[in-house]
């Protein structure tokens, strides 16, 4: 309990300040979250879902927290330009855990759509927020969610009203910027009403070479016939720790695609809890990881088929080199009477060095009989015959390896729906494999 204690003490001492710089909706659940956190602590390696990542160790160092919500003197619109060519997005920034509210590109959004900080949106959408905030993300079931709920002081709110289809992708760039080691607790609430459609891109970048720890809880509610595309792209540095818990709830005939791409990071833990509440829904969850040096990436998913007639697809691919550690655990849960479920899960991994470690654990838990569920998982290397074939045709070995690695990863990238994002990723992945890390031409983040 050593790691926990410093945060329990902190909350006991500073809860007044935390609440003062936060808002009612968030404060309402804060004390319960604190109790839940005290009861559970951080999940340890003995917790089945967290056995591949040592969470208490990640929280042990002394991080600074911006509890007084001091403004960071930075203008992201002028400093950063992490855009995707050919993809015009509605661009927003979250600096540390504060939504950057100045110069909001409001005009680009259809009427009724809200992309704002929770604190601003409470004034206009208090009911929606109160009905959804911290409802899916159950603090009694996960110590990290409880931790985030206990300390989160503000967040991003995205609301797409009934029937509204947004053409332009909403891009939110999370920037970590600090002169001291810093912990941030981000919070995102997404509500997509009936028949609405939205695609989103979250980019994680770190601007300073400091130790950052970012926890993040995303709750997404997708109503009947609605469509949500949620892309998360991480390009941070080795000292960065990212812990992301994503909760998604799907109602009838809804469609969700959730893509997580980790191109560069320190230690990353991504949890996805997706639940089908209405029949006829489908989800596509894809993950792509490229890691080397001492990077650590742990993707953990639970797809809960609580009702029948839903389809889930998962494809996760890892390329590991040097001392990288990769883990994937995916559980497909089919409840009793969730008949006619189709579920498909694939995890494929390439280990390019003898010191890289891969843990994979695809799981099925099935209580209904009229279902078709399968999972497959492989760990291996590039095909020698293919390498030889290419070399024989005059392609040098390194190039041949790169080509095969692209081909391996491209299978995931090609499943993404945003074509410009796909192109951009092809480009980034190629650069990543060639060792030109974080060097995009126009962005200040990269220089």
């Amino acid at each position: 309990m050593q790691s926990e204690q410093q945060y329990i003490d902190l909350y006991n001492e500073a809860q007044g300040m935390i609440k003062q710089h936060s808002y009612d909706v968030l404060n309402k659940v804060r004390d319960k979250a604190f109790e839940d956190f005290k009861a559970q602590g951080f999940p340890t390696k003995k917790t089945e879902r967290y056995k591949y990542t040592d969470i208490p160790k990640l929280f042990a160092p002394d991080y600074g927290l911006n509890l007084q919500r001091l403004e960071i003197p930075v203008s992201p619109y002028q400093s950063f330009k992490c855009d995707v060519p050919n993809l015009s997005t509605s661009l927003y920034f979250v600096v540390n855990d504060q939504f950057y509210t100045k110069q909001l590109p409001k005009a680009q959004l259809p009427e009724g759509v809200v992309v704002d900080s929770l604190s601003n949106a409470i004034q206009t959408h208090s009911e929606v927020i109160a009905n959804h905030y911290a409802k899916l993300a159950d603090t009694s079931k996960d110590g990290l969610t409880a931790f985030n709920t206990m300390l989160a002081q503000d967040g991003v709110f995205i609301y797409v009203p009934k029937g509204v289809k947004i053409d332009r992708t909403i891009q939110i760039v999370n920037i970590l910027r600090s002169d001291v080691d810093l912990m941030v607790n981000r919070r995102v609430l997404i509500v997509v009403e009936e028949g609405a459609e939205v695609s989103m891109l979250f980019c994680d970048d770190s601007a300073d070479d400091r130790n950052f720890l970012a926890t993040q809880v995303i709750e997404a509610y997708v109503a009947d016939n609605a469509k949500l595309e949620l892309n998360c792209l991480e390009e941070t540095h080795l000292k960065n720790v990212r812990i992301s818990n994503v909760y998604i709830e799907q109602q009838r005939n809804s469609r969700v695609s959730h893509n997580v791409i980790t191109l560069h990071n320190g230690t990353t833990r991504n949890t996805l809890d997706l639940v089908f509440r209405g029949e006829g829904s489908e989800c596509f969850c894809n993950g792509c990881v490229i890691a080397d040096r001492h990077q650590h990436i742990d993707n953990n998913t639970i797809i809960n088929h609580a009702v029948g007639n839903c389809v889930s697809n998962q494809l996760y691919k890892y390329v590991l080199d040097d001392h990288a550690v990769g883990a994937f655990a995916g559980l497909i849960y089919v409840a009793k009477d969730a008949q006619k479920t189709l579920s498909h899960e694939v995890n494929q991994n390439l280990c390019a060095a003898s010191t890289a470690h891969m843990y994979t654990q695809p799981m099925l838990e099935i209580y209904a009989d009229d279902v078709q569920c399968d999972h497959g998982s492989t760990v291996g290397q590039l095909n020698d015959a293919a390498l030889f074939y290419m070399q024989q045709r005059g392609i040098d070995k390194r190039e041949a390896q790169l080509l095969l690695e692209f081909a391996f990863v491209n299978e995931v990238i090609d499943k993404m729906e945003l074509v410009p994002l796909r192109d951009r990723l092809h480009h980034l992945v190629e650069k990543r494999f060639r060792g030109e890390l974080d060097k995009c031409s126009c962005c200040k983040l990269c220089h």
Partner: protein
Amino acid sequence: MSENNNNEYVRKVAEQKYEFGFTTDVHTDIIPKGLNEDVVRLISQKKGEPEWLLDFRLKAFRHWQTMEMPKWPHLNLPEIDYQAISYYADPLAKKPKNKEIDPELEKTFDKLGIPLEERLALSGVAVDAIMDSVSVKTTFKKQLAEKGIIFCSIGEAVKEHPELVRQYLGTVVPYKDNFTAALNSAVFSDGSFVYIPKGVRCPMELSSYFRINAINTGQFERTLIIADDDSYVSYLEGCTAPMRDENQLHAAIVEIVVLANAEVKYSTVQNWYPGDENGKGGVLNLVTKRGDLRGVNSKLSWTQVETGSAITWKYPSCILRGDNSQAEFYSVAVTNNYQEADTGTKMIHLGKNTKSTIISKGISAGKSQNSYRGLVRVAPNADNARNYSSCDSLLLGSTCGAHTFPYMDVHNDSAIVEHEATTSKISEDQLFYCNQRGIPMEDAIGLIVNGYAKDVLNKLPMEFAVEAQKLLSVTLEGTVG
């Protein structure tokens, strides 16, 4: 046998439900219930054991007291009162004069289809018959001894070959390994001991038959198999128990040591009493089975057909220590009514160029829960390790569950590890096709299930394969609907 006769037989067997649920009325010397150091000493004393073995038991017992039953399996394991069990039951304590074995016991084993008279026995199978805590008889010992093969109960081996037992006992499954292993190490009673000397190919199948008879007892057998360099042995294991309303505990350990170029095949047809259709009673089968492939080019193959037991919790495992060693695991686990199974295997690749194959078929029916749980671990030095796993589950009925929990830990870049699993119900097209050709529903299901399990059943020795096929049909009786 024609197809018709075969079906007739299956139906007959099915009507009897659990065929082996009778009890034998034989005087059994049972020590009082409860577990403490004195009980451990008493068991050791009754078996006339040397000091070192008593020490081993006591160490295990003391360690067991510090442990707790794990909660992680996907099972509703009832609370076991370890003080309400008697840890030693000896049906041989009072045998009639001039007789080697009590005729009642002989009759029992005849009824189970295990004749203890060598002339009656199937030629080519030597049997070690064990009831409760003691070995009743081991057949064909002489013929085997001529080749230098030692096949006897472990109690006898402790007396006659103490150096071998001492060298290998607890080296594959140490007493600290897990909760039930510690318990077994403290109170174990008879099991089989097999030693195949260098270069010997065992001329017949060796087999153990385990029977629980006495009430309120547990069975804690311990089996140790050592295959010396260049040897071969095929070993079969069968088991049954009477029908009782309360759960009976069976916590066994099987240790197998495979030395250079040796090969061991271990087959189990597990048919402990599964409890009645309401989930009352039945055997709790909590077993630690492990093989250590110590030598180069060694081979070990586990084949199991699990149809019995209220609860089955076991992972027959292989440690592939020797270079070029190969391990296989074939399993069919059937659960019906309220049965629960959490079973699978562990393949630990340590040596270079090691290979393992896992084929697991789960079939769940009624209100049962059937889980596959398996680990494939490739250690950093296990270059060129290769694993293929395939786990399929078949669901019969909407009230049962089928689960798959595979773990793969790969720490070497030259390893190739593959896993695939599917879960589905019997295809309606296949059933329709059979029906259309005049095969009734029940037979069609039997046919399809047997076909589904064929990959595994084919790996069983002849005598067992027939038995296992019938068992499958019987266990699934009445699941149509």
